[in-house]
């Protein structure tokens, strides 16, 4: 029998081991088919390794086969929650390359739909975020408002998720007659709900304790890891493409870029909540005076981009989406690369999750707001 004194800690004999658990691809918190291999000591996370590719469809390879008109609809299937903005990225790139100037009407309609998309995406994120920390009811409340936006989309372009409403040169059709009315009705309905959300989740003491000071992403590592979007702005770095490189009608509206300084889970949460307010503000400025004009500029039946390289970026609900095209003058791109926001946001996970518990980890991946098809492409 081993004899020990008070100052000879017996812990040395208690051999503990780290073990691995598999979060995903069918885990309720990984929102899709993300697989994370966690190395865990007790409940504390020591290492996270993402395993991707469960929904890799090789969109970039397909783009090398398809013509430019057909590429647009593929982007619906990347970040399916901001499909309208994805479409716009490709259309803007083609329009800039061909030097087509779309009418003001198209620009304004695109901007309104972008912001509706952003609200809808953030609403889904909010519902799911609540669900991840255990408040199951937020999911239904978030979806209730999202449904109204989806109805507007469905009336505008016939689909609720995979819009494909932007085409090179403008819009597939003009907006439907009740668009302005419906959008206003939505805004009127939505504004008081935001306060309700804050009462239900944001101010809740349990939620605060679960998120404040958790998963802190410092300014430096946010930049080094190439993080974008609300995740980056939660750490206090300016990266809003709508402000830095305005496109469509963003140069003529006034809105605030939301920053938080702490970089923790709660700050990332607040950025998105406040972004919804700003989106409302943007839509309100535009909805009453949609200018008249052509909705579709004439383009050739087969679009061929001039030889060269093009880069177009837009701000999706998750951050900067970059479309990089190398064209050799043919009807399909020589190389097409989508720099997706989720990809770089995921790469930071090991940096911010280590040292936290499993419960925190769920909250952290929730505020990174990952959409897996966006990462896998």
């Amino acid at each position, binding site marked *: 029998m081993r004899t020990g004194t008070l100052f000879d800690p017996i812990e040395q004999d208690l051999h503990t081991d780290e073990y691995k*658990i598999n979060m995903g691809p069918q885990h309720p918190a990984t929102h899709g088919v993300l697989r994370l291999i966690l190395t865990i000591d007790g409940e504390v996370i020591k290492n996270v390794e993402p395993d991707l590719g469960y929904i890799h469809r090789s969109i970039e390879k397909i783009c090398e086969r398809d013509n430019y008109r057909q590429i647009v609809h593929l982007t619906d299937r990347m970040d399916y929650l901001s499909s309208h903005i994805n479409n716009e990225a490709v259309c803007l790139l083609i329009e800039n390359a061909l030097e087509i100037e779309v009418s003001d009407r198209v620009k304004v309609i695109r901007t309104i739909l972008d912001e509706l998309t952003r609200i809808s995406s953030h609403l889904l994120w909010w519902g799911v975020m609540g669900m991840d*920390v*255990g408040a*199951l009811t937020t999911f*239904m409340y978030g979806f209730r408002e999202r449904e109204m936006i989806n109805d507007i989309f469905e009336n505008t372009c016939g689909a609720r998720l995979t819009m494909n409403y932007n085409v090179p040169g403008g819009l597939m059709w003009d907006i439907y007659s009740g668009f302005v009315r419906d959008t206003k009705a939505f805004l009127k309905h939505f504004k008081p709900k935001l306060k309700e959300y804050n009462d239900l989740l944001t101010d809740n003491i349990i939620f605060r*304790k679960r998120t404040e000071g958790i998963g802190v992403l410092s300014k430096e590592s946010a930049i080094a890891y190439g993080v974008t979007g609300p995740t980056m702005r939660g750490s206090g770095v300016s990266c809003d493409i709508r402000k830095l490189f305005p496109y469509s009608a963003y140069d003529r509206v006034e809105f605030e870029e939301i920053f938080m300084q702490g970089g923790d889970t709660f700050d990332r949460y607040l950025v998105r909540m406040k972004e919804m307010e700003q989106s409302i503000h943007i839509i309100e400025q535009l909805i009453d005076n949609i200018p008249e004009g052509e909705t579709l500029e004439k383009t050739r039946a087969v679009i061929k981009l001039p030889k060269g390289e093009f880069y177009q970026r837009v701000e999706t609900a998750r951050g900067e989406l970059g479309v990089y095209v190398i064209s050799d003058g043919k009807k399909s791109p020589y190389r097409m690369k989508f720099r997706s926001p989720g990809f770089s946001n995921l790469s930071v996970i090991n940096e911010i999750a280590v040292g936290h*518990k499993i*419960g925190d980890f769920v909250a952290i991946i929730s505020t990174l707001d990952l959409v897996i098809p966006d990462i896998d492409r």
Partner: protein
Amino acid sequence: MHGTERFTAAVHQWLLGMFSPGAAHIAEMVLTGLAYLAFFAVAGLALVYLERRIAAFFQVRLGPNRVGPFGLLQTVADALKLVAKEPIGTKKADHFLYSLAPYFLIISSLMAISVIPMGAGFSAFDIDVGVFFLIAVSSVGVLGILIAGWGSYNKYSLIGALRSGAQMISYELSVGLSLLTMILLVGSLRFSDVVQAQSDYWLIFKGHIPAFIAFVIFIISGTAESNRTPFDLVEAESELGAGFHSEYSGIQFAFFFLSEFINMFIISAVAATVFLGGWMPFHIGDLEGFNHIMDYIPGPVWFFIKTGFIIFLMMWFRWTFPRLRIDQLMKLEWKYLLPLNLLNILLMAFFVWKGWYL
């Protein structure tokens, strides 16, 4: 003599008329056991239905409404489905422990339910250490969860089970101490005495401030004891899949599921008995007429109304709050509830000593 007492006495007489005293006693025991088993099943199914329906209303949905009128038979159909299902477990599981675990939970819940008086003289056995017995027996359930987590050879189950171990042991303290606060007022651990003491005023009114604090603490720690949101770390759907019962299916899963709801019922029943007067009707001071009308409502109805109220409160919590983290859970118990509870006992003792209660 209350209605329920007359009923049990009549049954007793009838059995004595048919058998010898010894045989009648055994027959009574068997009958009681069967009655409780039936009650267990029915109450469990009803609670599952209620939970789903109430959750739906909180979430602006309709909830189950297809099977039977208002979907009342939905849970019965679900239970039948679960019974008919093949139990699928893991290959490497410790099969003995794996199969044993559900019974621990079921038996502990059944035993706990037996001491609660649902009407005058309407409990399976009324022992003089009733409250103590209930606390002791209900903590056997955690053993079932631990065994289930260990036996099913799944890391998620194991984490869930260990969380549950820590949680149950901590919150047991608060449950016990808050009940103890009320026992100071009554002076007896026998449940029938506790109820009898409330014939004039319910204990929560009788002990006013400390009783109310004890009530709040009991509801919080009771919610934790029955593993419900915001303390549902044991299964923590978004973190651990299904926690300790991840690997269970079919009837074994149904056992876990039912016992969870029965535990909620037990906690609510205890809260109703100790704080809200059990089967005693609601009386206001000297308003003879009002009190007389209240007396017409039978005891068991009162009991179920009060229990139902607490159950509804717990469901309301579940569909509103996010979940705590394991260290916060511990912090809440050891840094907030326990010190408050101890202070509260002192306060209550002082009040009792001074006679400052109704």
